[in-house]
């Protein structure tokens, strides 16, 4: 059996789990499993020391470090997950639609592998989570997944980017989510919740006081 195809399918299923999950713990776990799968997918390229380092770094950051940090922040903030803009069951239907679009896109661009479709689907799923969720945590996880999708796209491409840039990429993602985590901590400390829909003081479309 083609193990890389299995990994790609795991990535896809984690996206579905992410979009339809109602609890933050499930979302964090889905992102972690997806991170581990993405790390293992690095071995699709010809194996060199850089690839091993990249894979190890990806797994360490995405599957171990981030879930740990996010769980700590989640427990400290004691915030309830507010209901999303799009219901959980309807999210499933949207997932199916997004997956269909991803497969079509990958065929249109002439790279019709499962991983390519999975990469597009992950990007779309990340977008969907950011847009449809109200909690700042969910938005941060959505961003993490979005970057994972772009990373998966890089893996699916036949030729490689220099390892230096890939590592720089990883560092950037790490810093970004780190800073997001700090921001969420501050927001939840200031407001005692992390519901972004309630934090909407800046607007030009209403009279403000």
């Amino acid at each position, binding site marked *: 059996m083609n193990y890389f195809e299995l990994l790609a399918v795991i990535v896809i299923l984690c996206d579905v789990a992410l979009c339809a999950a109602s609890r933050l713990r499930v979302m964090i776990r889905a992102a972690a499993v997806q991170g581990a799968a993405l790390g293992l997918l690095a071995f699709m390229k010809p194996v060199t020391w850089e690839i091993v380092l990249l894979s190890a770094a990806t797994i360490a950051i995405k599957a171990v470090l981030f879930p740990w940090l996010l769980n700590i922040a989640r427990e400290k903030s004691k915030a309830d997950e507010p209901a999303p803009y799009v219901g959980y069951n309807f999210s499933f239907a949207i997932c199916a639609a997004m997956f269909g679009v991803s497969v079509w896109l990958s065929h249109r*661009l002439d*790279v019709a592998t499962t991983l390519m479709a999975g990469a597009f689907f992950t*990007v779309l799923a*990340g*977008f969907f989570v*950011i847009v449809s969720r109200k909690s*700042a945590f969910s*938005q941060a996880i959505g*961003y993490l997944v*979005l*970057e994972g999708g*772009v990373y998966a*796209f*890089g893996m699916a*491409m*036949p*030729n490689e*980017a*220099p390892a230096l*840039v890939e590592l*720089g*990429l990883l*560092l*950037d993602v790490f*810093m*970004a989510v780190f*800073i*997001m985590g*700090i*921001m969420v*901590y*501050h*927001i939840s400390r*200031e*407001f005692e919740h992390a519901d*972004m829909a309630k*934090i*909407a*003081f*800046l607007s*030009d479309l209403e009279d*403000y006081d």
Partner: protein
Amino acid sequence: MISAAILLPAVAGAAALFGGKALARFLLKATACAHLALVLYMCVFPQRGGYWLALDGAGLLFLVLASVLFAAAAFYAMGYLDHSAAHREAHVLSPLFGTEPQPVFIAFLLFFLASMSFVCASRHLGLMWVALEATTLASVPLICFHKTPRSLEAAWKYLMICSVGIALALLGNFFLTAAVGAREVPLLYDVLRQNAAKLDPLWLKAAFAVTFIGYGTKMGLAPMHTWLPDAHSEAPSLVSALLSGALLNCAFLSMMRVNAVCAAAGLGAFSAKVFLAFGLLSVVVAAALMLRQRDYKRLLAYSSVENMGIIAVAAGAGAPYAAMLHAANHSFTKAALFLLSGNILRRFKSKKIEDVKGLVQALPKTSFLWAAGMLAILGMPPFGIFWSKFLTLKALLGSGNYWAAGLLLFMLAAVFAGVAHPVMEMLRPAEGQSAPEPEKCIFILPALLLGSCTLLLGVFIPAPVEALLKSAAAALGGG
């Protein structure tokens, strides 16, 4: 030498983070001066770049702008931090950094400068992406520095929207790699430009589309501009000056690099249309939201959106020189205006226009510069923006986009109406105004110097500056 321009602020920032308040302030002043001197030296003696870093005309222009603006902001910061320290209690930024806020603020300012220099000097497109993401991350703590609810919201919005945009730009970078395919062409922008004809056109088009949206988000083009009014109005004034004046230009630089590759591959007509469309949309949206705006800092922020739109229109109309000139003029003018708005905010303690009455009596020097700056940003001669807007319109009419030119003129008129009325309200003398406070030189001088730069550019462009602008245009033009 080029890497020194990046490493110097980065190292100084790290030192400021762990040093004390006095060290941080010294480092800020020293680094600003040293960086400016370094950049001017590199202007006079062009540097040969390496594999990863190189300064072509456009990079050098934007680096000069960033450096000058930073120097102005750094000196303004001296006065600003004195004032704000007296009015805020110590507040822990995060569990990891237990230091006082001022060194953290200064450290992130220096990191911000380092990352912007990195963007300007990057030759490899992937590295440029990393640098642009670093600018986002370095500027987020600066925006929410005062931890008010509004600034937290603004900082979160900025972080999310710009990070998502830059993630899209990363996808675009990968599309570019796909366009390169199996041909051994590294992702260096000049090498790509030379070999542009060999790239796969479908992937290249997809790359341009996605990269435009991604970097356009960072640049503040509509409809991806929604973070800009919030972030630029809630940030401390000197940070707003840097964001509006320097960072938007860096995003524009990144976009133009990719555009140059596409134009060299023959997609110039397509990309020009995209630039024109989004640029006009930005001007329209900004003009619409500037009318009846009640917050003067938001007014300035929307003006940034409008001016970025004009820069995009200039690029799309095939007049890169006008785009460069406008970028330079806008940087100087907007930075001056934001620094002055800091003075107003400090005196009147409110960002709303209706709370600012009798500015002429309260802050005479500031109000003079404020009025001059507003006239400049609206495009009055003899300030520089008039000339760059004129060149843009000329290019539009010359390339036959009559409808676009007409729309642009109409929107500029709307912007004038939107800006002139509130400014007149602010400036008009009011009864019962308290005696004017003495305005410290440090709050006036940076804005004055920046304003005079834009006046200079409007009246007479010195030959070296002209040469720099022309080389920048040549480096990015070709479409």
